[in-house]
């Protein structure tokens, strides 16, 4: 029999644990945005070695499963003498991984700008730096917003993996809850509902942004 009591009772502790999920995702995307911008700049830079390094960065981080990256960082940090809390390692890994995807989102947004935009700016005698700051970036950032919201949704889901390094976010908390109540079905369904609620809110935000941009 499905135990509705266990199901409803699970929400309390799981929502409390959701602050870690949210924190990891938000910090992940925040730091990821900064690193992603640098990587994107690297890929578009005139220096070939920088371009190659940035391309390698993107290809490696997109090619390796996040779970493997997490364990690698988690085990690697103490070996190189950095004793940081698991939470910091987790946020760092998620952010690094996100930076690869974010840099591609920005690169795509910049590439999607019509060539005429820079040509028009050049035609009135604007210098390249001003062209970037005043014409290209403002448009590219706005255009990339829905994709970035989508990336945030992916991070919320991906953050479930940090449960393997012991951080008590939604998934880890639901494992603990399932172990004490012996009712995994109810508990994991409750966890799924919380993820769904977070992501539906984000998806609504994304659609709202897209609609505003269309105007």
């Amino acid at each position, binding site marked *: 029999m*499905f135990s509705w009591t266990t199901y409803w009772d699970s929400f309390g502790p799981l929502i409390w644990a959701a602050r870690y999920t949210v924190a990891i995702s938000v910090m992940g995307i925040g730091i990821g945005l900064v690193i992603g911008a640098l990587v994107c700049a690297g890929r578009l830079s005139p220096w070939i070695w920088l371009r190659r390094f940035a391309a390698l960065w993107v*290809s*490696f981080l*997109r*090619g*390796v*499963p*996040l*779970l*493997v*990256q997490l*364990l*690698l960082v988690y*085990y*690697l940090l103490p*070996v190189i003498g950095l004793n940081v809390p698991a939470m910091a390692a987790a946020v760092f890994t998620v952010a690094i991984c996100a930076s690869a995807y974010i840099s591609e989102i920005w690169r795509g947004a910049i590439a999607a700008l019509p060539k005429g935009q820079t040509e028009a700016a050049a035609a009135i005698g604007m210098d390249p730096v001003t062209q970037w700051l005043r014409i290209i970036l403002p448009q590219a950032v706005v255009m990339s917003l829905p994709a970035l919201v989508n990336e945030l*949704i992916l991070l*919320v*889901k*991906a*953050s*479930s*993996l940090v*449960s*393997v390094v012991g951080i008590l976010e*939604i*998934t880890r908390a*639901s*494992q603990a809850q*399932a172990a004490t109540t012996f*009712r*995994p*079905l*109810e508990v*994991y*369904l409750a*966890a*799924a509902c919380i*993820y*769904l609620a977070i*992501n*539906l809110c984000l*998806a609504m935000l994304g659609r709202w942004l897209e609609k505003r941009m269309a105007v």
Partner: protein
Amino acid sequence: MIEVFRQYGPALLSGFAMTVFCWFVGTVLSMGLGLILALVQRYAARWVQWILRVYIEVIRGTPFLVQLFVLYYGGPMVGVMLDPVPAGIVGLTIYGSPYFAEIFRSGFNSVSRGQIEAARAIGMAEPAIVGRILLPLGLVSALPALVNFSIILTKETVILSIVTVPELMYQVGRMGAETFRFVETNLALALFFWALVEVISRVGRRFEARLTQHLNTRA
């Protein structure tokens, strides 16, 4: 080093085989299910479409790991008892199907109305239109996204190790635990996946180029 490899080689090989197996079967099944979902969404009654929409949103809104837990640990409570490997494959199928459905849907939407109308105008029946026009054109335009998502699924297979499917990551984890060489083993695993994904995407791109050759308008 050689000693280590002799000891763990067979386990790693069987883990690799298991990864490929789960990935291949899971991809084929979820692609098939996704195609069916997309076709049903296109032609079925409003309320059926609505139910499928809910399914797609729920699966896409929740993490794969949690879905696996519901299936593997929660399933037995409602009589669904699956061993790790079948559970992993069923999980991959369910997880991948809505993404594939969306890919097929946008592929179908990219087929211009006119090409469908031209078929209607000469009196082609709907199944023939699907088989001869909608599928061939829709699939070709969906191809890059299909390849891309299949690659994403290769990476998702490592998550199966958490529910003890004896795939590559699981074997590497055991090897690490027994030798205490966590860094080296995980690094090797990372490099392996990197190479795998690069190779698959390169092959995929060449395949796409060949299939779409005659569709490109001349320069």
